[in-house]
């Protein structure tokens, strides 16, 4: 399939994906730097290393499709149209943050682009993705919904309930596991009863389960395209398990010393940006063209970071808005 793919994807398309990935990578690095400078508060879970999953999937979706992500969701927010500036501003507690600085890193959301939120309770959003898919079916649109989640999420009850209902109702939903081999610090293999935590559970709920190289944006795109087509044509849900790796620790306080150095090295060599860059060169793209994409991405991120830093701090009065749909927070007379 990879062979076919290489012929099918236009170089310009791949270059575009590459640039999107570079923007995400740059934003994650900026977040890390700003954290080290004390400008990013709270906790962050960087997705550097996971970019191909986000970009490859987004490329297979329609603008009106829905996605749901986890606390490790910066990449999905950006891939679906949130600006690096809006994301960094959110992390820096600025009024211009995508969630008005009320959500923070773990809850990036860009609803007007169908990015219906990042959820920080493991597994909770899989059933929500069902709900969006069910709604699409009820309203007779052909939208699909995607839930992204980690390997660790496959051992929680909501995962099982979501898969079963999706299959029974033949919902246009795709469950995309970003298997990065670890929960927080514990290797997933040490607490999971099957080798492929997501894909190996698909059959238990009567749906296909597919493994894909999550560091190859083209492979992700192609695999997702099949799953999306299946969902859109009312043939039901799919589990996709993308094998990938995170470049940073679990969260900002984690140096990730529990990972064997050889393993880290091996995966770093398969950095999704490296893989895509190599493929671009193989396609005949010039080094200059690829470098130019890098430069554009760097400029986008740099100006986003500046703008976010310059933005006004969140207004404390916002603590009392947005509880209710009327905008307020009144709970009694």
């Amino acid at each position, binding site marked *: 399939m990879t062979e076919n793919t290489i012929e099918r994807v236009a170089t310009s398309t791949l270059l575009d994906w590459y640039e999107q990935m570079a923007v995400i990578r740059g934003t994650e690095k900026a977040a890390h730097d700003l954290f080290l400078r004390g400008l990013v508060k709270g906790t962050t879970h960087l997705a550097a290393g996971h970019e191909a999953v986000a970009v490859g999937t987004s490329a297979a979706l329609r603008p009106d499709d829905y996605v749901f992500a986890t606390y490790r969701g910066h990449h999905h927010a950006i891939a679906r149209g949130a600006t690096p500036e809006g994301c960094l501003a959110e992390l820096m507690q600025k009024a211009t943050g995508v969630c008005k600085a009320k959500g923070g890193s773990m809850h990036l959301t860009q*609803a007007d682009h169908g990015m219906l939120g990042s959820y920080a309770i493991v597994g909770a959003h899989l*059933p929500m993705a*069902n*709900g969006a898919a069910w*709604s699409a079916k009820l309203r007779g649109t052909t939208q699909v919904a995607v839930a992204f989640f980690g390997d660790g999420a496959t051992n929680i009850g909501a995962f099982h309930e979501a898969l079963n209902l999706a299959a029974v109702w033949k919902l246009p939903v795709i469950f995309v596991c970003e298997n990065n081999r670890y929960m927080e610090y514990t290797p997933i293999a040490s607490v999971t009863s099957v080798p492929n935590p997501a894909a190996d559970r698909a059959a238990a709920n009567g749906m296909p389960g597919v493994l894909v190289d999550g560091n190859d944006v083209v492979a992700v795109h192609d695999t997702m395209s099949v799953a999306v087509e299946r969902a859109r044509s009312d043939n039901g849900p799919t589990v996709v398990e993308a094998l990938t790796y995170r470049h940073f620790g679990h969260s900002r306080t984690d140096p990730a010393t529990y990972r064997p150095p050889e393993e880290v090295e091996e995966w770093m060599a398969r950095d999704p940006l490296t893989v895509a860059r190599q493929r671009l060169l193989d396609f005949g793209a010039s080094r200059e063209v690829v470098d130019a994409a890098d430069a554009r991405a760097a400029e986008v991120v740099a100006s986003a970071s500046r703008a976010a830093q310059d933005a006004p701090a969140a207004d404390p009065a916002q603590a009392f808005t947005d509880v209710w*749909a009327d905008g307020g927070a009144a*709970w009694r007379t």
Partner: protein
Amino acid sequence: MADLTSVQMTTYRDAVADGIARELRRDPTVVCIGEDIGKAGGVFKTTVGLFEEFGAGRVWDTPISEQAIMGAAMGAAMTGMRPVAEIMFSDFLACCWDYLANEIPKARYMTGGQLTVPLVVRTANGGGLGFGAQHSQSVENWALTVPGLKIAAPSTPSDVVGLMASAIRSDDPVVFFEHKGLFASKGEAAPPGHVVPLGEARVAREGSDVTVVALAATVPLALAAAAELEGDGISLEVIDLRCLVPLDMATVFGSLSKSSRLIVVEENPYQGGWGATVVSIVADEGFEMLDAPIRRVASENVPLPFADALEQRVIPTVDKLVEAVRRLMSY
């Protein structure tokens, strides 16, 4: 006295199905979801007729998957639908508590207002029927611990219909507690177009000596106590809160300004019960209105026992309230 010939009576149980049906007719985005709610008409027969009238496209039977139910409702609510989800017994809210505690009430706030989650969670609440420790609890206080949920708990058939209309039309999530002990009770049917706004208490009976604040099944209980105490010349004002959030303290204070004496009667356990929140507001803002201690007649702080004779010892009863009123009057 009302002209009884023109008043149509109905049961609380039938009012539930009626209330939902009216909204299903009004608004094509309303959709029902739950276990055994379709052809079977619901375990409590509170969805009888919906499947027949509206079909499988509007009334969805689910597996025993409370998390999947709530998640489906939530995802659909943020994408244009108005789901009405049934969790069979309110005790089972514990099986999907994450959705009620962490997801549904916070989605709007933590996205800075990007998401709206207009859904209703209906559930059969309360004891007194010998269902034992895991099927008899009153858990409206669980919902009260969570900012971002509206909470309705009607006591009459017409309030069931009126509050259901408001709940389903609300753009905020509403937890709707139907009391198991009231399903068979009768009352006036709701007129067409009947709507009761969320957050408006009702003075169920006027009186002057003691204000009794009640909710759901403790409303008829309080009315029975009021009738009994009338013989002693003690006059109770009974307030049916109807909702815990929004909480209509104005009506409570209005009553208290006459009576200066307050008893809250609730089915929640005393520890952590909703009455404590009402009392704490009065003990602060209404301190000068009070002529006597504030009392709570609540459930005892034990699990709900199976045997009737034991259960009656645990939950509030007319006798317990009458006794509490007498003690308060002799303060």
